[in-house]
């Protein structure tokens, strides 16, 4: 059994959010604060009855801000903020699953299995609310009269003793305090079976009593006795996870992280929730961890939040769920070939590509280096401010990015060379008209003049007068490149692509003066408009 779908209403970022999960691997990506962790939290609340089980907590922080504002503007009982989290389980004919199966879900036309958590005003206090007399200025949410409830879709009360999926949440982000303790507790609870746990706990208490008895005389002080606070000696609260005799707390963040993830993978659970597993890990350790995840992925369901492109590409792009603007986009329809391509190439720019609204893919390093400055000089604008991401494509791979754009619907400009090939120019024109025809935001640009073989040639032609001394740093430069004769300055640029790119963006003589070749300028103008 696995988590099939989650509906979140009125919780934190999400006013009305739906996410469908894959049976095995799910990689959640998105900008900071997009709500990735909130999704894991929501699962924890529904399945494990996290947070809301104690009625004394302060839960206002969990409400969706829009809902709070709506209520503040119009403090009526119907507008009171509420939270609903609905967790759908995969279908199963096991008898135990009957406890979860019924029509008490948002999809009440069909029998579904799952659990609904709700936190809302208890309507039996309706009269109390009416006499509270909210006045403008001191409007508050009467959470004292709120009720937290867990029900299965069969309409039965849910308690986490009936947990349908053994799960473990590993939070490697540093936001929460004391996550270490709760982690150890979790390991203890899910790896030791309940009978053994009882025995251990009993043995522990017994030895404490033994200790008290054998030291009775030292513990008696006049008419008082020193005893032990039972609340502080609950076994699972004082356990410490060790590796090689050393507490993993003391092993350094990276090691702690790796050990925690490893243990999580070993624990016999059905669902593993991993929060930013790459934190504090080196490239090699991240790869080691990914290998671990891959080995395990056929048996369990994993939901992983990450900012690491390596994790995204290695765990197959198709498993990626992209959280953006309160919505979830699945990349499962990406063609296998494209997914395989990214899986093999450890593409470090992939995440930037998916998360950006507008992307330029350039051919090589020199364009990548110069583009921001040249755009500033030519179009009087800053790429970052236009939220345009520049990626270096390196050759023919842009076709895979085109496939991605088809799925994620961002805008893509490809800047490429014509390689002196008229056929290629024609082919690109055909592609562009095809994209325009099917309303795709994709444009491929190259110089139409086949004499302008590469970017450097185009750039030189456009800025000839300003570049006439650029070769002076290497006076011995021969006026030829790859057996063809060129102007000496252009030959220098072709032979020293990176060096000249750096000089153009740094030296006073060029920095504010060099402008974009026309085909790139047109392309960027197109992209800005999108």
């Amino acid at each position, binding site marked *: 059994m696995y988590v099939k779908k989650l509906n979140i209403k009125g919780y934190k970022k999400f006013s009305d959010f739906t996410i469908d999960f894959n049976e095995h691997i799910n990689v959640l990506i998105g900008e900071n604060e997009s709500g990735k962790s909130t999704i894991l939290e929501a699962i924890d609340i529904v399945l494990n009855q996290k947070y809301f089980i104690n009625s004394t907590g302060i839960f206002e922080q969990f409400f969706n801000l829009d809902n709070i504002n709506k209520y503040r503007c119009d403090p009526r009982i119907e507008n009171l903020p509420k939270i609903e989290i609905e967790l759908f389980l995969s279908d199963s*004919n*096991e*008898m*135990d*699953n*009957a406890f979860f*199966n*019924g*029509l*008490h879900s948002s999809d*009440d036309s069909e*029998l579904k299995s799952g659990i609904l958590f709700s936190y809302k005003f208890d309507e039996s206090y309706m009269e109390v609310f009416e006499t509270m007399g909210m006045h403008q200025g001191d409007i508050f949410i009467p959470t004292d009269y709120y009720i937290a409830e867990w029900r299965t*879709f*069969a*309409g*039965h009360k849910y308690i986490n003793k009936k947990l349908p999926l053994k799960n473990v949440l590993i939070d490697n982000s540093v936001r929460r305090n004391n996550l270490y303790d709760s982690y150890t507790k979790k390991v203890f609870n899910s790896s030791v079976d309940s009978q053994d746990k009882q025995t251990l706990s009993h043995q522990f208490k017994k030895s404490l009593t033994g200790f008290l008895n054998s030291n009775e005389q030292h513990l008696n002080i006049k008419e008082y006795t020193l005893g032990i606070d039972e609340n502080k000696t609950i076994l699972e609260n004082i356990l410490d996870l060790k590796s090689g005799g050393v507490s993993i707390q003391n092993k350094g963040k990276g090691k702690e992280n790796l050990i925690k993830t490893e243990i999580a993978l070993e624990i016999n659970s059905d669902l593993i929730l991993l929060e930013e597993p790459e934190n504090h890990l080196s490239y090699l350790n991240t790869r080691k961890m990914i290998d671990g995840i891959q080995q395990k992925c056929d048996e369990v369901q994993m939901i992983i939040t990450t900012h690491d492109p390596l994790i995204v590409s290695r765990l197959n792009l198709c498993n990626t769920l992209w959280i953006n603007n309160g919505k979830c986009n699945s990349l499962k329809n990406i063609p296998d070939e494209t997914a395989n391509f990214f899986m093999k190439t450890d593409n470090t720019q992939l995440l930037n590509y998916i998360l950006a609204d507008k992307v330029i893919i350039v051919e090589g390093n020199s364009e990548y280096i110069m583009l921001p400055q040249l755009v500033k000089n030519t179009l009087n604008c800053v790429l970052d401010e236009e939220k345009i991401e520049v990626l270096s494509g390196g050759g023919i791979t842009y076709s895979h990015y085109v496939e991605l754009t088809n799925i994620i619907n961002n805008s893509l400009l490809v800047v490429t060379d014509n390689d002196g090939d008229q056929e290629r120019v024609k082919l690109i024109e055909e592609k562009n008209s095809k994209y325009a025809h099917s309303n795709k935001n994709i444009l491929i640009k190259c110089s139409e003049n086949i004499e302008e073989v590469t970017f450097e040639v185009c750039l030189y032609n456009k800025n000839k007068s300003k570049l006439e001394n650029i070769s002076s740093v290497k006076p011995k430069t021969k006026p030829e490149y790859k057996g063809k004769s060129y102007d000496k300055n252009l030959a220098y640029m072709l032979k020293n692509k990176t060096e000249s790119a750096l000089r153009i963006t740094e030296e006073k003589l060029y920095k504010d003066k060099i402008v974009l070749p026309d085909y790139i300028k047109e392309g960027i103008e197109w992209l800005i408009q999108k």
Partner: protein
Amino acid sequence: MANSKIILATAGSGKTYCIAKHLNVNKKNLVITFTRQNVSNLKNEIIKRHERIPNGTQVITFSSFIYRWLLKPIEPILEVGEKKGIVTSGVEIIKEPPPQRIDGKVNYQYYKKDDYRHYIFNNKYYSSRMAALFTTQPKKVKKLIMERLYKFCDLIYFDELQDFMGEDFKILTSLLKDSKIEVIAVGDFYQHSVSKSNFTTNKPFKKSKEYITKDDYIKLFKGQADIDETLLNKSRRVPSVICDFIRNKLKINIGSVSEVDGHYELLTEKTQIMKILDSSEVVKLFYSNSGKYRCKPVINWGYSKGDTYQKSCIILTKTYENIFDEDFSCDHLTPVQINTLYVAMTRATHELYFIRESDFKKIKMRYL
């Protein structure tokens, strides 16, 4: 009917044992009985045999079955009187619904079946009307409920078959008729109409004012299930001398496989009578109001259903004053009268004593 089977058993023949033995741990089983006491008897017997309640086996009471399996999961489309989709908060176990008539007079607090309050009080179902609520559902709703049942359950065992009456019996037969589920029902025909609570119906056991016979009862299941009358026709509890006596006097066919050399006798001597009444080892069975007699342990005939004692003593009613006479006949008695005594007579594993009403009367005051 999918291999559905009805096993007609005699008192003390090991119905519980038989269910526990028949249980296939690889299948999904629902074991259903009427009382909580029987639920725990069945659970104990299953644990004895399989070490624990197997995964995929549930033992529940019939009302819990109706609530948890038939009504609650589909509440959003359930039609309750004129309303639909009431999400209730459980089952009302204390308050009984106001009856249609009290002492033959119309009761104005009664709600008709087209009013949701016929079924629901304080947002909870009246326990005694849940079965009727299920049987009145439209076909479409019933179909969904049944589909859900098949999905999670291969086999349903019903214990105490003879206690299924009225709407409960309708549910039982509709499950028997269904081809997608296997039903095994075990019961003792001759224990029908003997129960701890009052009945509001006597269907199917009474037909146009006449009680039906065992053969009539079997005919009710024709085409729905195979009837097995031999598997459990011998009592493990009741010694053969007592079985002989029952066959002879009550015309109920009960055999014995008990190895105990049992004993029964009519006590007529005052000292003998008092010795037994004073013994704490002998359970005294009174027709009714047993609680008021100071000769513990005591119990009512009907309430002793399901119990096993080593020694028991039946204080007879006027009806049975002459049961030890050669020419005693039960022909003029109703099945309710016969069955109640049958239950009382089949409790003891070793010794069974009888006291005539006329003899008891003489010393009654001592025990009040």
